[in-house]
């Protein structure tokens, strides 16, 4: 029964990892940008939530109403300025630029917020309470909620990409940017929209992480970015649902690793990550289109 509990916990935490990963995957799928600042952006989302809650006293669960649009705007602006300028030079330049962005964000946070850990809504009942199934399985409401949010986000994103006019434009630009221009589409604007979506999802991930655990200025690179990468690679680059599969596989391996030995939690996750890279480099869910 202990193992069943591990698997369930792993699956649920996979939802959080999917929230980290889907924006990374989207930005790579659409504009071939590997955003090394992705984890730091999640942390920025977390800090904005801390500030918003301190000022407005809205319940922590509702902080996303302010944080997510703010991050989406930030995503659009950053894409249209810094990242697009890098893209105009070369794809490799975007790696340097997003790495630089990551360093800048981390140090700015250390400078202006300090290095202490923060978390969100520690005293809320929703965050601390859980329910039990039998004697061995205990499920935290928060983890269940995060998993549901992840599924809703992915479903919504999938629907948006496959059905809406903008979603169609995003897929067209991802396929062939020049041909899209010939159809009158300003691909830079479409890139901005895609970045806005990516930033919005990772902001949700940042808020969720802040409620689940605690974060400091370095959490973005030393935890979130790595998990996001692992989830994307395991699931399959460019596949949206792959990020959930990847997140779940990562979560389950970590949970099982922790059960074997407390210090092996992350090691187990990375071993699976490596195994997938070696045995099935295209990921568990092979890419079909960009969606």
């Amino acid at each position, binding site marked *: 029964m202990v193992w069943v509990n591990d698997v369930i916990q792993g699956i649920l935490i996979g939802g959080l990892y999917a929230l980290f990963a889907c924006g990374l995957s989207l930005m790579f799928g659409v504009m071939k940008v590997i955003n090394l600042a992705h984890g730091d952006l999640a942390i920025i989302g977390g800090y904005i939530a801390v500030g918003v809650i301190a000022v407005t006293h809205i319940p922590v669960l509702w902080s996303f109403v302010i944080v997510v649009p703010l991050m989406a705007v930030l995503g659009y602006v950053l894409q249209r300025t810094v990242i697009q300028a890098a893209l105009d030079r070369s794809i490799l330049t975007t790696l340097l630029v997003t790495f630089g962005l990551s360093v800048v964000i981390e140090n700015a946070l250390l400078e202006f917020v300090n290095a202490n850990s923060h978390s969100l809504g520690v005293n809320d009942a929703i965050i601390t309470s859980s329910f039990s199934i039998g004697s061995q399985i205990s499920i935290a409401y928060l983890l269940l909620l995060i998993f549901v949010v992840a599924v809703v986000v992915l479903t919504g994103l999938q629907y948006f990409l496959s059905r809406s006019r903008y979603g*169609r434009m995003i897929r067209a630009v991802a396929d062939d940017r020049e*041909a899209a*221009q*010939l*159809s*009158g*589409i300003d691909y830079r604007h479409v890139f901005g929209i895609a970045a806005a979506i990516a930033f919005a999802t990772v902001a949700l991930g940042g808020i969720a992480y802040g409620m689940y655990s605690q974060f400091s200025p370095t959490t973005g690179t030393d935890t979130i970015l790595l998990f996001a990468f692992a989830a994307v690679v395991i699931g399959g680059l460019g596949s949206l649902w792959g990020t959930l599969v990847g997140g779940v596989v990562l979560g389950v391996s970590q949970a099982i690793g922790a059960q074997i030995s407390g210090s092996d939690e992350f090691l187990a996750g990375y071993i699976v990550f490596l195994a997938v890279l070696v045995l099935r480099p295209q990921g568990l869910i092979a890419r079909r289109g960009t969606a």
Partner: protein
Amino acid sequence: MSEPADRAPKQDEPILEVRELTVHHGQLRALDHISLRVFPGEVYAIIGANGAGKSTLLRTIAGLHQPTEGSIRYDGQDVTRIRPERRAISGIVMVPEGRRLFGSLTVEENLQVGATYARKGPWTIERVYELFSWMKDRRAQRTEQLSGGEQQAVAIGRALVANPRVLMLDELSLGLAPVVVQRIYGMLPQILATGLTVLLVEQDVSQALRVASHLQCLLEGRTTLQGTPSEVTPEQVEVAYFGLRSPGGPGGTEGGEPPVSGVGLGGVVPSEEAR
């Protein structure tokens, strides 16, 4: 923007005018002071061998390359520095070489993308389905699953639904069986009947001669011959196309227009090769 009401060839004002266009690919001069004037309702064909600069010319008119010299005027406006997507929206639409469909999208989605910023006009997705009768039944298929000729038809449809005023066709025949090429060019009269102007690039000279109202031959980035298909002789085309200098024959790579009556079309083309 109003629709072009009539399409009588050789009206006073060209709908598209290229003046002294020079384009470089790095060090290489791909186009060397090329000029052309396309009038409403025309089928203006640009022929030439591989590497003559034909595709570069169309891509520059579409805005995908920036010229180092010269200008492009469309509908009386200078569009030389306008971004490609703005040109497309204003009515210069290109069917690119190699079709360049959105491979992960369905046939219908490709057409919908083409219609995203469509001008007002006669072409709709339904109308394209009427033009290519097989297409409607297969509209939910990905374009990757179509044959080359079918893909070319979708690419044409994607351009048509934008309701272009100037439709540019880049090497429609590339990689297609002759019978398929015939069929696609056979659609041209129906397309022209809706009042648009066609500027096409073609390696297949006989095909171009069949459909064109005006012909311009490029060789190594320069104009070597132009006129109406009835004005030029096969020998002239051969010389202009391959750059052979037959003794006593007209034309040649450097010589500008061959001194044959009628070919110059006095006044239609401003000083060629002026440098």
